[in-house]
């Protein structure tokens, strides 16, 4: 553990010291640890899983801190009725980091409607979905914390808006190793995360039936090609009796999806996919499903460290994706 000014996994005391120095921070950890931190210019979310410089770890005695080197920072929280304003509040030149609690109505609003929010895609926004230890699923709730008040929320999103000086720009990156496989093309008549009917190669079908018929591995997401970027939607559960499939994020109406092909040796492929010099990396996160299904515990993912999360935000909500943000100079 350390208390380096550039962050990482550290004790509560180490994080408290950085907060008291007035640094702008995003902090991930268990709710009981986040609750011990002093008030200040920070936002936090619950997860005990982290990608550290030493590899993937589950830690219930430490927090993961990311320090933001920026000119001017503000913190805000949003309920489901005000969330659409999030990017209108963001600076013209800068970036926003958002943390949303898993299973909350505010996450549902973001998942379904973020692509339509004013200024979406124009202003950079990254972030993650907070969760709980997998042994406590259904027993405790994911939460976020507004460092100004120290209040934990299970029904709000917290956002840190950072302004950058002239000549610097924030760039959002996503690393997704999944690619469309050879199965049928799937399209959906409505934006939804709970599905039955779909179009299978142009014919009416049922997604649960397709998954059963193709003996698809539930660990592989649905993938859509967004002008060269692969966007995943992960499968949460398949109810064959009811013919319904629950997803971790919605599929969007009219978008063409395929089941992903398997990725062998995720850590090695991830290392190859990360740029050798990613730049001034100020924020990163990776998905809990990559951690679980790709065996990241104890294994490193290049320079990308940060919380292991229950959904990732690179503008819109993504699944099974690593996200990072760099600050670059225009010259």
């Amino acid at each position, binding site marked *: 553990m350390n208390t380096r000014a550039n962050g990482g996994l550290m004790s509560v005391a180490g994080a408290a010291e950085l907060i008291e120095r007035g640094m702008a921070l995003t902090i991930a950890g268990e709710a009981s640890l986040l609750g011990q931190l002093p008030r200040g210019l920070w936002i936090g979310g619950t997860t005990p899983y982290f990608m550290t410089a030493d590899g993937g770890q589950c830690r219930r005695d430490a927090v993961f801190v990311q320090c933001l080197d920026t000119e001017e920072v503000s913190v805000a929280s949003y309920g489901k009725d005000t969330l659409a304003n999030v990017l209108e509040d963001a600076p013209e030149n800068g970036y926003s980091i958002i943390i949303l609690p898993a299973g909350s109505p505010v996450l549902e609003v973001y998942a379904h409607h973020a692509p339509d929010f004013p200024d979406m*895609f*124009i202003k950079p926004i990254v972030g993650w979905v907070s969760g709980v230890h997998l042994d406590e699923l259904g027993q405790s709730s994911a939460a976020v914390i507004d460092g100004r008040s120290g209040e934990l929320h299970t029904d709000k999103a917290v956002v840190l808006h950072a302004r950058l000086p002239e000549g610097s720009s924030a760039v959002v990156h996503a690393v997704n190793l999944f690619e469309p496989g050879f199965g049928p093309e799937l399209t959906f008549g409505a934006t939804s995360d709970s599905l039955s009917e779909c179009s299978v190669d142009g014919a009416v079908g049922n997604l649960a039936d397709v998954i059963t018929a193709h003996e698809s591995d539930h660990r592989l997401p649905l993938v859509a090609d967004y002008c060269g*970027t692969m966007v995943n939607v992960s499968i949460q559960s398949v109810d064959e009796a009811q013919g319904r499939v629950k997803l971790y994020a919605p599929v969007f109406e009219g978008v063409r999806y395929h089941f992903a092909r398997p990725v062998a040796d995720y850590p090695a492929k991830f290392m190859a996919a990360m740029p050798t010099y990613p730049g001034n990396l100020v924020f990163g996160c990776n998905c809990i499903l990559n951690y679980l299904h790709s065996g990241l515990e104890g294994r490193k993912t290049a320079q990308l460290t940060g919380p292991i999360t229950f959904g990732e935000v690179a503008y*819109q909500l993504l699944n099974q994706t690593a996200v990072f943000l760099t600050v670059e100079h225009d010259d």
Partner: protein
Amino acid sequence: MRDTEICRKLLQLEEPWNVDRVKVDVQARELHAYLVAGKSWFGRPSFGRPKMRWRHANVGAFKTFIHATLPDDPEQRPESPFLGQVDSDFTHGLAQRVVECLRAGLGYRQVCNLLEIDVYLAWQIRHAIGEGQLSEEGKLLDQGTNESSPRQIPPTGDPVWFRLLESEEAIDIHLLGLRLLLARCRQEFPALSSNDAKIMRVNTVRRFFIKHEKQLDHEISQLLEMRRGSQAGAES
């Protein structure tokens, strides 16, 4: 009094400009004024199609659009409130109203609600002022912007934007934000029935190009190549 004469007074036109014809769409609450420099031919509408279309400040409850053709010689182009610039989507008069509202401390959302304009148009006006393209309005709003010059980037009315959004033509894009935005707009574009809705999507994509121009050399050169290809195709 003829409708064109009433419209001339409402728009406070100055010589040599006159209203050639007026189109009022009551259902859409839109007023379209087609202007000519000089008198129309014996009071009859002229048949030349105006080359420019600008959004103007509302006349009453009606969203107002000015259609006109500016002289080819830039020196001869007036900066009258009811006219705009060749490559812009708004009149000087509307820009002035936006500036007055911003100076009074209103936020973008409030300005847009008050003037019934979309946020992208308000942003374009603010950007043009920051770039010094609207010198008079810029004097009023003494505030710069961090964004780069849009000089390389085609204007909103350029057909290349429609080609970009209507086709599935591959374009090699480095920035994740532009990939997601373009994919989204391409998904939506075929279902949009109104031209205004399509222009709004064009404005959104164009805004991304303007805001991130310094990072988009590769993408802008492909866009310009696409435009050259379209022009060559049209000429052959």
